[in-house]
């Protein structure tokens, strides 16, 4: 078992090490998230009732944008220096290597967002229970963003104007995650309970974790041809 997973673990370890050597990238994406979330009250007004209402959506949309920011660099540096080609040619499973890269991307870009979200939720006057549900929804949802985003990043690898193109391809596919993620808090406030939304979000996570690395691998092979 451990031998089967060793390329996966090595790939995660390598990308985390690379990320640790370029700490500014992680911090920049995180601050982008913080700034976007904080711009919204400035644009909409400081009314606490209104802010409490928009908080889940605001945090979720900011998380989508923050994820997009890092996705462009998911495969591009490795493609530029030829590492990606070597990975595709190696006897190890390319899918597992790609899955490792996706997990590393989530650990670097998604997890910090999840951890800082409750603090930002306090600025929107959310109750303790809502904060907990929001954090759980982000914990389940941000890996989906990394997984689906990896497919888009693979499709647009080395393509003209890939940044804007990536957003155009990926944002419509993020809609279900956004609806169930931001909807969990609202459903709880409406008295329906968050379980249904969170279960569906978990289902989306399982399905995308199963398919997305494989589809991304196919797309990468097309890009490398």
């Amino acid at each position, binding site marked *: 078992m451990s031998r089967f997973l060793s390329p996966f673990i090595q790939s995660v370890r390598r990308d985390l090490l690379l990320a640790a050597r370029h700490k500014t990238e992680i911090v920049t994406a995180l601050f982008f998230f913080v700034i976007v979330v904080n711009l919204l009250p400035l644009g909409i007004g400081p009314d606490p009732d209104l802010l409490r209402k928009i908080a889940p959506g605001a945090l979720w949309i900011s998380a989508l944008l923050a994820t997009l920011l890092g996705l462009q660099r998911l495969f591009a540096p490795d493609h530029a220096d030829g590492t990606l080609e070597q990975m595709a040619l190696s006897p190890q499973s390319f899918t597992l290597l790609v899955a490792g890269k996706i997990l590393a991307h989530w650990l670097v870009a998604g997890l910090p967002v999840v951890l800082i979200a409750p603090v930002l939720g306090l600025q929107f006057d959310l109750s303790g229970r809502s904060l907990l549900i929001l954090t759980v929804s982000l914990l389940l949802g941000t890996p989906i963003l990394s997984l689906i985003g990896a*497919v888009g990043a693979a*499709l*647009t690898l080395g*393509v*003209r*104007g*890939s940044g804007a*193109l990536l957003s*155009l*391809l990926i*944002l*419509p*596919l993020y*809609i*279900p995650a956004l*609806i*169930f993620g931001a*909807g969990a808090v*609202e*459903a709880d406030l*409406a008295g*329906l309970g968050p379980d249904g939304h969170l279960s*569906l979000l978990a289902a*989306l996570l399982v399905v995308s974790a199963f398919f997305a690395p494989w*589809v991304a691998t*196919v*797309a990468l092979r*097309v*890009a490398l*041809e």
Partner: protein
Amino acid sequence: MNHSLVNWFKFASPASFYPLAGRLIPFFTAAAVLLLAAGLWLGLLVAPTDAQQGEGYRIIFVHVPASWMSMFIYCVMAFWAALGLSFNTRLSGMMTSALAPTGALFAFLSLWTGALWGKPMWGAWWVWDARLTSQLILFFLYLGFIALQAAIDDPRRADKAGAILALVGVVNVPIIYFSVQWWNTLHQGASVSMTKAPSMAHTMLLGMLLMALAFWAYTIAVALMRVRCIILERELTSEWVKKNAME
């Protein structure tokens, strides 16, 4: 040696498909013109005025078939995409990219006529109804597909990347539809529902069917014309183009 009666792959080659498409185009063009004339005549002149909606309802003779086509074309694109990826046929990718602009056109047409219909009937150009929202997202999916293909220079890579995107999209369309529907019921946004349509007169239904068939024939004719252009563009250096197609 295994000789089957029909050679299924004969027309998978652009060289043999090009003349076939050329022969089919006039047929489908004529069908489109005749069906369109019949459908419009039935819809605009024969069908009775609706008791509740007046004359404004006649926009559905364009709106409903356009919505059907926009969804159907995406499925056809996904079919060609799957075929192209599994059999590695060049023509499949060309068909996929030939269909995309027409699909986007119908999605846009359905949104636009829907807005024109919604203003007098609902009093709003746009409501966040589940169908409207998912139709808008379908339009975005078309635009994403066209943008991806336009951004990639190598046609073979553009075909394959587009095929993967079309398949990912077609898996996502039902998920998006149901999530939007649930989102809408939670918000209780639109108070008007399109599902509670009153039972239709036979002439209306017939008019709508004729219009749908007309759009169908139009789509086939235009897609074949476009695929012929794509074939010529890509095979410009090959012998058969110089010999036959450039007369």
